[in-house]
């Protein structure tokens, strides 16, 4: 089992969600986050003059997949979230020790 943490552009959430659903990956947790990478912040205005906000709104998707689904899931996310401009975001892949479905007590791959 692997956990995918993908920080993407907010407007790419829906394309990524439906692409994952097409390959049978339904469950995910989504959080509105702020972040920055090479993309600089954004200039906003005071009444006169402006100021820079360094962190931009992003969406973080957390999804746990079976090892054999990992590359398909990553490809789906990359294909849908990429614009080629700075600010497309990053994906981290983490190992998962165990998973438990609270309702039934199922563990491991059965809980995914």
């Amino acid at each position, binding site marked *: 089992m692997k956990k995918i943490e993908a920080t993407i552009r907010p407007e790419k959430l829906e394309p990524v969600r439906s692409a994952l659903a097409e390959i049978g990956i339904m469950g995910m947790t989504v959080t509105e986050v702020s972040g920055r990478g090479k993309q600089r912040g954004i*200039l*906003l*205005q*005071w*009444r*006169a*003059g*402006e*100021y*820079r*906000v*360094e962190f931009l709104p992003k969406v973080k998707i957390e999804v746990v997949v079976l090892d054999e689904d990992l590359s398909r899931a990553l490809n789906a996310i990359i294909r849908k979230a990429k614009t080629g401009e700075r600010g497309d975001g990053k994906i981290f892949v983490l190992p998962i020790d165990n998973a438990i479905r609270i309702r039934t007590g199922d563990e491991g791959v059965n809980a995914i």
Partner: protein
Amino acid sequence: MINAGDTTWILISTALVLLMTPGLALFYGGMVRQKNMLSTIMMSFALLGVIGILWVLYGYTLSFGPDLGGVIGKLDFIGLIGVGQEPSDTYASTVPHLAFMMFQGMFAIITVALWTGGVVERIKFSAFLLFAVLWFTVVYCPVAHWVWGDGGWLAKLGALDFAGGTVVHVNAGMTALALALLLRPRKGFREGQPMEPSNIPLVVLGAGLLWFGWFGFNAGSALTSGGLASSAFVATNISAAAGAVTWMILGWIYRRPSALGVATGAVAGLVAITPAAGFVHPIAGIPIGIVASLIGYYCILWRTKRGIDESLDVWAVHGMGGLWGAIATGIFASAAINSGGADGLLWGGGMQFAKQIAGVAAVGAFAFTATLGLGKLVDRTVGLRVEEHEEVVGLDISQHGERAYGGIIP
């Protein structure tokens, strides 16, 4: 003789001006960071209580009591003694003295509330209250007497101030600047840390309430309900509109037409028309509003560049806008509009122009220096500024033990 129409209009105007103070609370509250929203709102709202009491106890008589040497009112009306249902002997001869007294009280409240924009996000609430009481007593009441009191020295000089360009706006603007200099900038301000407005829709709502209430402020200052009130009413709306459009265009030239900008522009236009509203032809509201926004915009750029954290631009919008309004009164005033007024520069009244400048200079200098003195006094006794850790956590929690929005459920 009491006139029912006049009395009705003054009572309604009084309520309209009252609404400006909670409007101002929202206008300011939306412009500060979320952790300081309530403390900012609280300053204005607390004054509705504190000044609401002090005004009837002694503020009214210091401002409008029988003249003492042109500088202050005598104590004849202390605790509303002699202020009753019959008209005053001196002011507003067609409305009950009580109505005139309360109408003026609303001006006192919002003037004190106005300068709170300069001290947000760092002033200690107890110090704020103490300073507000001292300032109301030592600065507001005398200045109101100078300009509006029968026998006040600026009134005798002939400086015109229809609804408070000098008494309210120059006074509050210079006070905000002096206090901001005493308090020094908010933590992180000079380092360029963004001080992002927490809720611009609230700012726009507040500006809307101010605009609405300002009809009572300016048209109510006619103290009658007839033609002069209507003229001032129309001038007020024209200037607010001209100010809003001008600021919108300025924002567009430099970057984008912003909601915060258009709301600020409307207020700038309202400020500048205040002293002029009942003395000028309403159409003069157009140049008055346009120039008010130009002045406000560039004064904000200037103070920001200088690293002056007069946080919500009371000096730029109200102080400098009020200064322009007073000067504009000296330019556009016409005795044909208001026989109680005078002819300005446009109609050959050069002396009136000079009197206007004298009035603004006297009040501006007095407010600035008296504030420095009173502010230092409060700083050395109570301490003006919160502790650094209180500022970091925010004044809502450190001063008031509450926060604007709930957090983790429930």
